[in-house]
């Protein structure tokens, strides 16, 4: 077989431009990070003006499957540390699994004052629709289900549950008023857009398993310097400050009630 040399040269050039695209990273992040991650990326870019950072939000379970199937993500921030741990075990990680935060769940409503409510109030049949994330695969949904069980009201609440595909969609069900109240991530309730529309009440974290969140650098980004840099940046005071502002409890800090 003979290929014109110029074609080979072009192919090589194209290949090299892909592999040298180390000043670009794609982050797959759990939906609860939507607002916090945006701010962290903004600050990160100020310090690294040449860096190109693309962020994709969705459910942790979906990203897990996609990375297994070779999705072009360099970093994976899961809302449940279990998913990156599985990926690491299967050889899809180029870093240790790093815990980066503990999440909290809250009651949030756009139509009533949730700050004056407790989780037990959800038993009230006057509340027609209660939104949670799908417990089957969304970590925040799983914790919401546990909390409802612990509060002893699961049976009373279950027929009125509507389930979001991820925690951001769950919040959107409540925000549009289609659900009266929802159990969503504190990180979302603290966002300006949602905070202006309704109040929240923290659900005591002894009602559910901890929402330990973790991230990995994927195998794909094993040689990506920028990915490593961003991973390290998550531990910086700047990034930690943003996370704290969005209600995350950081590893190594005492959980507050």
């Amino acid at each position: 077989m003979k290929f014109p040399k110029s074609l080979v040269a072009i192919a090589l050039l194209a290949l090299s431009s892909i592999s040298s695209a180390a000043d670009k990273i794609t982050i797959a992040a759990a939906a609860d990070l939507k607002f916090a991650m945006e701010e962290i990326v903004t600050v990160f870019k100020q310090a690294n003006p040449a860096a190109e950072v693309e962020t994709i939000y969705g459910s942790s379970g979906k990203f897990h499957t996609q990375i297994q199937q070779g999705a072009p993500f360099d970093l994976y921030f899961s809302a449940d540390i279990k998913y990156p741990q599985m990926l690491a075990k299967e050889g899809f990680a180029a870093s240790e699994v790093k815990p980066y935060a503990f999440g909290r769940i809250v009651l949030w409503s756009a139509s009533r004052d949730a700050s004056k409510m407790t989780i037990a109030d959800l038993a009230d049949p006057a509340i027609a629709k209660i939104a949670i994330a799908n417990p089957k695969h969304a970590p925040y949904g799983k914790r919401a289900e546990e909390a409802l069980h612990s509060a002893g009201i699961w049976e009373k609440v279950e027929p009125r549950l509507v389930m979001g595909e991820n925690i951001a969609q769950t919040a959107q069900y409540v925000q549009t008023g289609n659900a009266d109240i929802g159990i969503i991530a504190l990180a979302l309730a603290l966002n300006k857009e949602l905070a202006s529309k309704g109040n929240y009440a923290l659900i005591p974290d002894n009602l559910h398993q901890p929402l330990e969140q973790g991230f990995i650098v994927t195998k794909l980004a094993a040689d990506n310097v920028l990915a490593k840099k961003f991973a390290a940046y998550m531990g910086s005071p700047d990034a930690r400050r943003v996370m704290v502002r969005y209600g995350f409890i950081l590893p190594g800090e005492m959980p507050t009630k």
Partner: protein
Amino acid sequence: MIDSADLAAIWLTVELASIVTILLLLIGTPIAWWLARTPSRWKGPIGAVVSLPLVLPPAVLGFYLLVVMGPNGPVGTLTQSLGIGLLPFTFAGLVVASVIYSMPFVVQPLQNAFEAIGERPLEAAATLRASKLDTFFSVVVPLAKPGFLTAAILGFAHTVGEFGVVLMIGGNIPDKTRVVSVQIYDHVEALEYANAHWLAALMVIFSFLVLLALYTLNPTGKRK
């Protein structure tokens, strides 16, 4: 294997698609008839509106339906004042959404079938003093039978294949809004690939059979 939740999803999907198909034939027939026969200058715009779901991403439909049928939307206000409550997260809501979403798949084959009939059989019926209604049921419907079949099969199949709209307005409630496509998605997200495979394979077989029926019943290039 297929478990009871999967079976519930399959049954719900069949139920939804059947109701939607019947409704679509009832609603779509007069619309298609009008579109096929009218000299009105509204033919273009109305035809375009009916066909919109062909082009629109399901996310657009889902988003608007969620907002319009929500408590602050016009349809939501109406349904609430009628005492029906809100449509999102209900089976009725899915029916409404699916009727809109699958409308072009029923109207277009019907319209084509009606147009193919032409004027002559209708004129012949008129000289025999058949009423318009009589003409429609005794002449048009038998002549357009392949069109009705195609419309029903496509309407049914397209409703079964719906995913994006259901995901946005369904709320994933067992026996109410958790249809097969959503159930498969949930299995995949929960890493239950074996269950996902079973349901997905069923869908492939079903889709193949639908298309097979379509091509067998309506062989192209041959008109009876």
